[in-house]
Structure formats: structure tokens, C-alpha cells
């Protein structure tokens, strides 16, 4: 028994060690701040989308929960942070924490429905919850501003030092920092026994239950955590753009983030980030010449991607991220 424990511990510790490629990735994310000073607003969007996709990765990639309505928590977080700032508490970090708590609570409330069902009921429940929230935000105009959006959000400087500017300098660094910190937490969590147990549930929930992992409890927990992550992404949207519209709860947000995660590949934490970069780049290029029919191209991309391209892209990414460094190390030793 203790030998097994040692082996598990050793493998977890090994996974927790930082690869060279990972360090390079984060250094690069920081470096683009100076490399592309004109594109900071886009970079900020990428960072937020990456955080949102990371949140989906926690439930989809690690726990195998399919969701068609993850935008529910994004939107909830955005409105929570926006409303807090509108009513006088403009400190961004307080707003962030508040949004995470609100979305997390919503996730906790929704989790009994998620835990129970099969894929189909999960799809429906997540979709339904997102639709309900969208409808509430739409009809409760006195609170949310309805279809006009939530205006008059004033955000104080981050830590009282860095105020938000028009070019997105503060915004990008702020979003990137939040993304990085939450990523560290997620990374630690997924390389812990808790993360292992989630993967066990994903791969075979019956067997996981038989070996002493309580599936419903674990799924509820990760769903709550992922919801609060999505809430954080929503708060970043509200704070860096100082505006919240109904769009944050729209169905296409949920679909987009799924595409983002699938492009990058679920289940190794970096998928969301890589996907966010590819997605935003694609969106930027395509909508430059057909702004209205961007939806068509994204649809075509989805279809082709699922039919053919998936193995291609993932094979490439995994090769660069994992095999190559491993091979290099292997040769050295």
C-alpha cells in the first residue's frame, strides 16, 4: 500500500514540476506587452477568453462534464462585478472576489442538476440555466439596464496604483496577472489527489465510486470552482471594458468557449490559452472582411475541425509541449 502511495506521490510531484516550455509560454505572454503595444486591447481579450476557457477545461477536460451554458457564470460574474462598481465599491480586486463568490454560489446551486444527469441532461440543464439568466438580465432592466447594458461603471486603480487607461496597458497586465494566479491554483489542484480523482471519475465514474472516490461530491466541488473561475473572467470583462451588455450571457459565448477549448485541446490546462490565441486571431482576420457572417465561418470551422483537423492540431501541440522536451531530456540522461 505504501509503495503505491509513494508511486502516486512521485507521479504527482513529477507532473507538478515546471517544463521549460511552460516557463517560456508565460514569459512570452508577459513579453508581448512590450512587443505589441498597439494590440493590448486584443491581448486583454485573449487573456480573458483564456481564463474563461480554463474554467471550462476544469469541468470538461478534467471532469468530463459537457456544458452548453458556461456563459451563465461568465455573465453572472460580469454583472456582479459591474453592479458592485456601479454602486460605489470600485476596487477591482474586491469586485473580482465578489464576482467569484457570486458565480461560485450559482455553480454550487446548479451542481445537483449537473451531478445527477447524463450527457444529454447536462447539456440541457446548462443551456437552460444560461437561458434563464439571460432572460432575467433582459427583463430586469432596472437592475441590469436590460438590452442597453450596464453603464456607469467606475473602476478604481488596481491596488490603488495603476489606473485603467484607453490603450489597455493596465487592463492587459491585470488580466494576465489574474489569469496567471488562477492558473497556478488550477495547476496545483489538478496535480493533486483531487485532480486525479476527477480524472478517475471522468474515465469511469462507476469504478471511481467503487475505489472510494465520491463522484457526486467531487463533481459538485469542481463545478463550483469552475463557475467561480468563469465569474472571474466575467469580472475582468466588466472591469476592463467598464461596461456589461447582455452579450456576456449569450449562447454564442458558451459555444465559442467550447470551440476555444477544443481547438487547444482539453485536459492539460494550456488548451484554453492556446485555443484563445488561435480563436481571437481567426476572428480578427475573418471579421476584417466579412463582419456579419463570421458565424458562418466559425460554424464551418467547427464542422471541419471535428471531422478532420482535430488530431492534426492536437498532435502538433502535444509534440511541441510534451514530447519534444521529454525527448530532449531523455537524450541528455
Amino acid at each position, binding site marked *: 500500500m505504501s509503495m503505491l502511495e509513494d508511486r502516486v506521490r512521485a507521479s504527482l510531484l513529477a507532473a507538478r514540476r515546471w517544463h521549460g516550455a511552460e516557463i517560456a509560454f508565460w514569459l512570452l505572454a508577459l513579453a508581448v506587452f512590450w512587443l505589441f503595444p498597439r494590440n493590448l486591447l486584443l491581448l486583454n481579450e485573449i487573456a480573458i477568453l483564456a481564463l474563461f476557457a480554463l474554467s471550462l477545461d476544469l469541468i470538461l477536460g478534467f471532469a468530463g462534464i459537457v456544458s452548453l451554458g458556461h456563459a451563465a457564470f461568465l455573465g453572472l460574474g460580469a454583472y456582479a462585478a459591474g453592479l458592485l462598481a456601479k454602486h460605489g465599491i470600485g476596487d477591482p480586486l474586491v469586485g473580482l472576489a465578489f464576482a467569484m463568490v457570486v458565480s461560485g454560489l450559482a455553480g454550487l446551486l446548479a451542481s*445537483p442538476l449537473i451531478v445527477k444527469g447524463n450527457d*444529454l441532461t447536462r*447539456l440541457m440543464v446548462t443551456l437552460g440555466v444560461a437561458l*434563464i439568466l439571460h432572460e432575467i438580465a433582459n427583463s430586469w432592466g432596472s437592475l441590469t439596464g436590460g438590452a442597453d447594458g450596464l453603464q456607469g461603471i467606475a473602476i478604481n486603480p488596481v491596488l490603488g496604483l495603476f489606473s485603467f487607461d484607453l490603450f489597455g496597458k493596465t487592463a492587459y497586465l491585470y488580466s494576465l496577472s489574474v489569469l496567471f494566479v488562477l492558473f497556478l491554483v488550477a495547476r496545483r489542484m489538478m496535480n493533486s489527489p483531487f485532480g486525479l480523482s476527477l480524472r478517475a471519475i471522468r474515465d469511469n465514474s462507476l469504478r471511481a465510486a467503487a475505489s472510494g472516490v465520491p463522484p457526486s461530491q467531487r463533481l459538485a466541488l469542481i463545478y463550483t470552482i469552475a463557475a467561480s473561475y468563469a465569474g472571474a473572467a466575467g469580472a475582468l470583462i466588466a472591469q476592463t471594458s467598464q461596461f456589461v451588455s447582455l452579450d456576456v450571457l449569450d449562447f454564442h459565448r458558451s459555444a465559442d468557449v467550447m470551440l476555444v477549448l477544443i481547438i487547444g485541446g482539453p485536459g492539460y490546462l494550456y488548451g484554453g490559452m492556446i485555443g484563445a490565441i488561435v480563436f481571437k486571431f481567426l476572428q480578427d482576420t475573418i471579421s476584417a472582411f466579412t463582419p456579419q457572417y463570421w*458565424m458562418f465561418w466559425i460554424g464551418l470551422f467547427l464542422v471541419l475541425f471535428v471531422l478532420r483537423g482535430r488530431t492534426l492540431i492536437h498532435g502538433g501541440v502535444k509534440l511541441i509541449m510534451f514530447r519534444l522536451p521529454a525527448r530532449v531530456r531523455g537524450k541528455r540522461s
Partner: protein
Amino acid sequence: MLTILFDGIAYGMVLFVLACGLSVTMGLMNFVNLAHGAFAMLGGYITVILMQRLGVPFLLTLPLAFIGVALVGVVLERVLYRPMYGKNHLDQVMFTIGIVFMAVAGADYLMGSSQQIIKLPAWLQGRFNIGGVGIGKYRLFVLVICGILAFSLQWGFTKTRFGSRLRASVDDARVARGLGIPVNRLFALTFALGSGLAGLGGALGIELMGLDPSFPLKFMIYFLVVVTVGGTSTITGPFFAAMLLGVADVAGKYFVPEIGAFIIYVLMVILLIVRPDGLFARGRA
């Protein structure tokens, strides 16, 4: 009061015709097809185009909508859907969302984003008044057509050889295949029938539900509710689910318009808590 009930039932009937194809294909191939609404929309647009551009009478457009969409369904099933059967639900969801997006943007491009309006023939307009209950003629027409369809589907499903093979394949595709039932061909046929019915439902529903490019997205949740609540192994399950949904939706929007849109979601959540396996779930090993 009875008028609302009647309207709700007519609405539910259309929903049933729209969604029953989905429930069978979902049950048969365990395939999550979110693009079902796109077929319905196609049927609606076929009717609109035939009526507005070519002046075909309304009644004639209905079978044409059915046939047209069924043909498209067969082709798509062969070319696009078949490779997806073996994949996991996530891939299927992504794939069919992709199709929905393409359909939405394509319809927008070809037909414009406005609501489509058709002119019903004179004998379908207006309403009867029977004992103080107002009954829309068109709704009665829809009710009769869908009722006949539902009965013949139920009959076909339970009494014919095709139906029993289908039920066998839904219950256990592997064993059915082992017994020499051509499951794939059966499925292609069912898929065509299902999408054809969706097309017909879309055509019938223009007057009741409206038709614009966002149709597949707007009604996706309705179809899913019908299928999940009704279960996938019978015709009667989705039928009653659709009725329930139709009546609840119409009544909700009539009596409490402020929160009317929530009714079906709340209903769905309650149903899923009480009966997570569907309203009429049979025990399964």
C-alpha cells in the same frame, strides 16, 4: 380559458412533429443532434420561397417541404453525419452547433434577417366560435394534420415490421445488427423521415412560432426538453412532453407575460429533478 388550452395543444402538436424525429434519431444512434432546428428552418423557408416567389398554394408546399428537407437529410446523413456516430457526445455537440451556426448565418445571407410572413389561404383564416370557445381555423387545421401524423407514427412504430425493427435497434443496436437487421439503412431512413417531419413542422409552425434565421437557436431548448422529458424509446413520451410544454408555454405567456418565458425552463428543471430519466422512462438494465 379553453381557447388557451386549445392553442397550447396546437402549439404542442407542432412541437411534437418538430421534435419526434429528433427523439428517434437520438435514441437510435445515441447521437446528439442540435442541428435538428436547422432542418425545421429549412422546411419553413422552402414554404416561404415557394409561396412568395413561385405562388405555389400553401397546402401543396407542405408535402414539398417534407420531401425537400427529407432529401437534404439523407444527403447530409450520408456525407456528414455518418462519420460522427462513433465519436463522443462532445464532438457531436460541437459538430452540430457548427451546422447550426452555418445554417443561421446562411439563412441570414440568403433570406435576410427579418421575420418571414406567409399569407394563409382564406379558408384557414379567422376562427370558429363553438359554445363561447374561440377556435382558430388554422390551429384546428394544424391540430388535425399533426394528430393524424401522430397516430400514424404511433401505428407505424408499434404495428409494422419497420417499426418493430426500429424499436429493436433502439433498444440494442448491436444485438439487432447481429440478428440481421440492417441498422444503418434503417437509421438513414429514420433520419430522412425525422428531418422531413422537422421540415413539415417548420412549415406548419411559421404562423405559430415565426420564422427568422435565429429559429434553430431559439427552439433548440424546446426540442431538447421534448426529447429529454419524453424519453427516446416511444412515440407517446415525446408526444405528451410536447403537449405539456406547448400548453405550459402558451398559458404562461398569456397569464403572466412578464415571466412567461421562464415557465418552460422552470418546468424543465422541476421535471429533471423529479424524473431525471424522463417523464415516461422505462426501467433499463
